[in-house]
């Protein structure tokens, strides 16, 4: 019974919170710029409105274009069920689920990039090329970070690796975990195309990676893409929160609010980063991603030395 309640809280949180994170980031940026900014719940209104709208499809496109929206959303939606949010296990948890998690996100990327190429637009092709290239560098950084956790916890399940036992490891392997935390935060920014990798605010030449791929999507399909992107942000945010705040009080009534508060803090931090940094020159992006890989690799070396 307890697990059923727990799983339903997990599902409800995972599918209702993501747009709020976008709202918090936007609000933080507005505060930094001295503006009032859009309401916190604006992303929900946007999504609702998009699902009411009609759609325009490019005549060049085929089913792959539609699949881009669907697969991006579904793969993120399944991935979110694989990660533990508070101390107890995720709804889907089995030995080796970390690999499924990483490859589900890869599947979403495959189809989002293919959908962009399906339009035959030069801009979207450019976005697709960059997305897959940067993801290819971000993936090892993420995986190596996971391995640090696997090595520490002796578990091969995300729920075990990011479970409450992680709190004890901060005491004896804090240096490794701090490196992984930094590396994962970089991965979070890269995978979700935030500053300094990309500026998600504009929809044209200034936005060169993720947003440029979805130029031709509209209406419900675009809503699905936005929602899928928010889910992905939630997924990576949750991983970072679990890593940074692994301790659990023991009572679910307190653990869940702690998690949500942590997530909102991550959103604020992203907002601060976006307000205080400029976008990197494109040729510098791989350097930062390789740095993230090296941080994770150092974390492993510190652990096995």
């Amino acid at each position, binding site marked *: 019974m307890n697990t059923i309640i727990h799983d339903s809280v997990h599902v409800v949180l995972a599918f209702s919170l993501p747009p709020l994170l976008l709202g918090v980031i936007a609000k933080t940026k507005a505060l930094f710029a001295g503006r009032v900014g859009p309401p916190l719940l604006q992303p929900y209104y946007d999504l609702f409105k998009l*699902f009411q709208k*009609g759609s*325009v*499809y*490019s*005549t*060049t*496109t*085929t089913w*792959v274009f539609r699949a881009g*929206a*669907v697969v991006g959303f*579904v*793969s993120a939606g*399944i991935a979110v069920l694989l990660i533990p949010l508070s101390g107890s296990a995720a709804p*889907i948890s*089995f030995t*080796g*689920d970390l*690999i*499924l998690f*990483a*490859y589900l996100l*890869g*599947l979403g*990327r*495959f189809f989002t*990039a*293919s959908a962009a190429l*399906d339009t*035959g*637009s030069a801009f979207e*092709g450019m976005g*697709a*090329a*960059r997305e*897959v*290239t940067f993801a*290819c*560098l971000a*993936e*090892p950084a993420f*995986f*190596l970070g996971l*391995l640090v956790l*696997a090595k520490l916890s002796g578990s091969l399940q995300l729920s075990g690796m990011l479970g409450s036992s992680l709190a004890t490891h901060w005491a004896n392997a804090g240096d490794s975990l701090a490196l992984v935390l930094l590396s994962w935060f970089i991965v979070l920014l890269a995978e979700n195309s935030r500053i300094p990798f990309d500026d998600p605010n504009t929809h*044209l*030449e200034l936005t060169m990676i993720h947003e440029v791929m979805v130029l*031709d999507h509209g*209406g*419900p*399909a675009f809503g*699905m893409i936005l929602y899928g992107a928010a889910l992905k942000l939630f997924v990576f945010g949750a991983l970072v929160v679990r890593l940074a705040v692994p301790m659990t009080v023991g009572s679910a009534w307190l653990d869940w609010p702690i998690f949500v508060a942590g997530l909102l803090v991550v959103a604020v931090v992203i907002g601060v980063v976006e307000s205080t940094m400029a976008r990197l020159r494109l*040729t510098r992006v*791989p350097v930062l991603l390789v740095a993230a890989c090296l941080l994770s*690799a150092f974390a*492993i*070396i510190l652990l*096995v*030395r």
Partner: protein
Amino acid sequence: MDVPANHGSSPGADASSASRASLQTVLGVGCTLVMCGVALVPTVRILCAGTSESVRLTWDLFHGAFCIGIDPLSAFFLLPILGLSALAAIYGGNYLLAYRDKKSLGSTWFFFNLFVAGMISVVIARTAFLFLVAWEVMSLSAYFLVTFEHEKAEVRRAGWIYLVATHLGVAFIFAAFVLLGRRAGSLEFDVIQDMPATDSVTAGVVFVLATIGFGAKAGFVPFHVWLPEAHPAAPSHVSALMSGVMIKMGIYGLVRIVTFMGPPAPWWGLTLGALGLLTALVGISLALHQRDMKRVLAYSSIENMGLIGLALGIGLWGWANRLPTVAVLGMTAALLHVWNHGLMKCLMFFAAGSVLHGTGTADMEKQGGLMKRMPWTASALIVGAVAIASLPPLNGFVSKWLIYSSLLRCNSSSTGASGLAPLLTIGLLALIGGLAAIAFVRLTGVVLLGSPRSKAAELAHESSAWMLGPMAILAGLCVTAALIPRVVTGQMRHVLDQVLGTEASRSLLRLETSDTPLQIVGVINAWTIVAFVAATFLLIARSRKPTRKDAPTWGCGYVKPTVRMQYTGRSFAETISEHLLPRFLRPRIGGQLPRGLFPAESRFTAECPDPVSDRVYEPFFGRWAERFARLRVLQQGKIHVYLVYIAVVVVLALAWVSIRGLWGTA
């Protein structure tokens, strides 16, 4: 490779040659189907029952009788040979009809059947002599199939490289068998197998020889150079069979030889694993910037053989260190990937052949927009691409998952600094996965999606049902294998029994019963597909007419966007292949960029020859060819000079014999 674009009934072709071509096709395909059908019965029976059967004739063949047999290991490799050859024959029957006015189809079908028979004989041979003969039949008939379009210079060159590579490889295999046979006193596999454990030095030497010899067939770097030449040159159904099945014979040979020598030494696993990892990295890096579709697929085959080698290495390492879980996971991953890669690579070569058939060119930069013109072929290619990029919910993911799992287990069972190797390997495996995603988004995106980049792509036509049918079957198998991974790996129980011993297979059973992650992977794959379908319906329901409009792609404010503005295959991979790859693996960029205020002629060229053959083998062999050319002084073409040589040799031989005689008496 160019295919005559219009393969319909040309008015000039006379009726008798057309009927002869169809007779040859029917006979050729029929023979293959009968052969595969007959052999399928014992294969399936033995794979399920785990027994073995053999036939022994009292016919003395060079240190051993004529002996053939099927045991679970043979049956395991026989199944893809039979299934995929039958599909390739059906596909090829229609594919080759495009050539009926230019070529005699009889000879190519003769060699096709010989090729299939050769591969079957390789896995059922039970004596080294027969094995080598079958190996040669397989390799030589493949040569004649590769050089089907021998009027083209590049096809002849490809055939030549293939022939040289395969024969250099066979020399090593020969040496390995001679070493084994000398100890056992017979070349029969049963005798070699029952022989008491080989001493570690001989066993090590045999392992190295076998790795080089069979690695040349399997396409391990640096012996892979023939693959990217031969695969694009061959007709597509032959490329599919070579890539899906023939290169796996290298894996079969390696596993077979390892079973002869008892428990391996730990360094075997490390060597094979390192070689596999190198192969996978180099293969996928080179696949990123190829222009020829079939070359992309050939390099991807190299990558996948590397992954199989890596998994096999992990299995051997676990076996040597008495870690049954690691051994079983590694071996299962390797074997499963043999099947999976056979399915998906055949699917992709069939689809690539269909594209070649429909557009007349394999150049990616001349394709585009084929999803609209040949939807079935294009969809099949996308299924293959998702599978081979090892993404869920298809079968490639299941074997990739097993490889990761075996590495993770490796790590948890090793301590200290030695645990670093599996961990960093996992990081590199993640990199390989990311690179594979780039390579296959690029392949499908540039070839199938967007707008056509040439007249040929614009006029492309869908292939016939004879070519689409095999693709549909393979795509269906790729999905099915992903949904029931435990049923599929369950078929490998007897093979693992045979290779690792019964102790290991018990641990497989334990793996299946205690926690069943494989089962869960299958279930999640199924649910993922269900979720896709549900979300698609949701999207379709929300975007029905009349609220739905069709309009051209937004040109971002450009008034006249053209198809040439699309991202090309080269630009798609530019960042990674021209800036991030090691210099050795980058494509060669040349040409004359526009200079000055009034630029005159400017050119741009990008070449991507195989770096190993271009920078290592060709200079090396070129230098030796020069040195040997000096020996031509001896070859005067005058009969009296040759008579002098003969006289000198005879005198020297006599002198040698008499000196030895004197020595003996003294």
